[in-house]
């Protein structure tokens, strides 16, 4: 049992390493994972008096969100199109291991990208993170959840627009609903309900608490648990969907 778990974990890490080598520098990943969030940062920071303690955790969450969810949206679709997905499906690798491996590759991308952003903006903005350990934990758990976010949409797709279009239709409104620029508490009740059904809300809240140091430990824990539950649910959904793609 333990052996089998370890074997599958090693297989998942191999898939992640392979995806990192192949997909991290693909144009759609750079476009949607790096360029787009950076422009978003400038759009909301230049000429506006938004405090950096409010803005930067939100942008970090968006970078994590877009970075992590872009990799597998691209990888799955391209692998299906080129036939390399058959390599994984013909190998003695369980479906959930394939999904986990792909999540690991996305997780690493979003995690590293978000930390690079924060480290880069600190000297220019004078921005400080009161609790860096919780901030890193928050970014890590967020990356893992968002890594699984694009998966259910991309498992079936053969062409990139089939994945990217619906993914962006979901991702873009989330920026405005999940408290990145407008605190969730100030929004109308129906929007607040929608916000709490979306993982980005919990990520923004956790990173903001870690940045400002105003941590209420049980709400931080709730944020983490919610994100982990989203991750598990999305993994299960993606695994089920991948099984269904076998003709």
């Amino acid at each position, binding site marked *: 049992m333990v052996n089998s778990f370890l074997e599958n974990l*090693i*297989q998942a890490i191999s898939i992640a390493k392979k995806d990192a080598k192949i997909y991290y520098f693909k144009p759609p990943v750079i476009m949607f994972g790096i360029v787009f969030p950076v422009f978003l940062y400038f759009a909301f920071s230049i000429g506006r008096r938004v405090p950096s303690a409010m803005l930067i955790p939100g942008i970090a969450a968006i970078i994590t969100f877009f970075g992590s969810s872009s990799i597998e949206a691209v990888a799955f679709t391209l692998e299906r199109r080129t036939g390399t997905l058959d*390599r994984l499906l*013909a190998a003695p690798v369980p479906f959930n291991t394939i999904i986990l491996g792909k999540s690991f590759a996305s997780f690493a991308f979003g995690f590293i990208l978000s930390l690079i952003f924060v480290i880069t903006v600190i000297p220019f903005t004078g921005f400080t993170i009161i609790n860096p350990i919780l901030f890193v934990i928050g970014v890590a758990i967020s990356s893992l959840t968002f890594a699984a976010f694009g998966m259910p949409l991309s498992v079936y797709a053969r062409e990139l627009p089939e994945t990217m279009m619906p993914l962006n239709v979901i991702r873009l409104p989330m920026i405005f609903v999940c408290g990145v620029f407008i605190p969730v508490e100030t929004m109308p009740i129906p929007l607040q309900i929608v916000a709490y059904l979306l993982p980005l809300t919990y990520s923004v809240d956790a990173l903001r608490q870690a940045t400002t140091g105003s941590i209420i430990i049980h709400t931080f824990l709730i944020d983490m648990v919610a994100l982990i539950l989203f991750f598990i649910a999305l993994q299960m959904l993606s695994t089920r969907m991948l099984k269904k793609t076998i003709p």
Partner: protein
Amino acid sequence: MKKRNEAARFPILNAKKVICLDTAIKALELTKRYDDKLAVDNIDFEVMEGEFFGMLGPNGAGKTTTIRMLTGLTKPTKGKAIVARYDVYRESSEAKRRLGLVPEISNLYNELTAWDNLMFMAELYQVPKSERAKRARELLELFDLYDRYKQRVMKFSKGLKRRLTIALALVHSPEILFLDEPTAGLDVQSSRMIRTLIKRLNKEENTTIFLTTHYIEEADELCQRVAIINKGRIVALDNPEKLKIAARGESVIEVTFDKIPNRIEDELMHMDYIGNVTRHGDKLRLFIEDPSEDILSIANFAQMKGLKIISINTLKPTLEEAFIELTGLSPIMIERLEQMKPKGRGRSG
């Protein structure tokens, strides 16, 4: 009706009746339906350990669907696939661990080097860490790719990609190797190299080979037994020699006279023992029941007509004849089949 009688001459293995302990692959009532189309229709067969088994059929006959069902890439609508004693769907990991697959299209990671492709597959198939590099080096040398191990696969030619695809399928030393049209579209040199390597693998390492092809000569040259598949059904299964003999109910004598008088075909056709006469350049092909008795009658006919026999040969039946007879291909399809033959190949017998 005629077709059914012809098909009845060919032995079709009934896997339900034959159960051997050393069966490597077993297809039991394997069926695949895509919406209205029946791609594979209730096929049964067995492949023994160490056997070189071929599946021959025209495009769209169901070869690739069969291989995909046997390797767990497609779910059968009905029936069962047993590979290396494991049910491909119920004990998927165990079965997949023991098989290697070379798909019809070389599905390599083009962005990675040949070495990285091999290492990734070795990790995926859990080849022990201490053996991975040794195995990869052996395969690269075997397939004459070692000097390119640092090159990205996207720079490889079609033939090189094909060789690497086969090397990847062998990284975990599988008991059974499935090859889907391994030489399709390759140049003569690459095709020959691949055929030689597959033969060696089967002979020296006792690897069971399941090969699909639409090259009749390839099946004839390599396979110990051949299943001819058409429209999703196995119409014949036997060794190539038996199929050839069974395909041709009558023998063919090819004769060249010093001249060909007008209406000679009609005159020959009037002779009792000749079923049909066709002309091929300066040669006449006579379809007869028993060549040993009828050659003398042909010599007498020549003498009577004042013709000299330049040459006379009994033509050996070919697997192609069996294939065409069983698949019921039209003359247009036969012509296409001719075009599909790889150029520059010698006939093996």
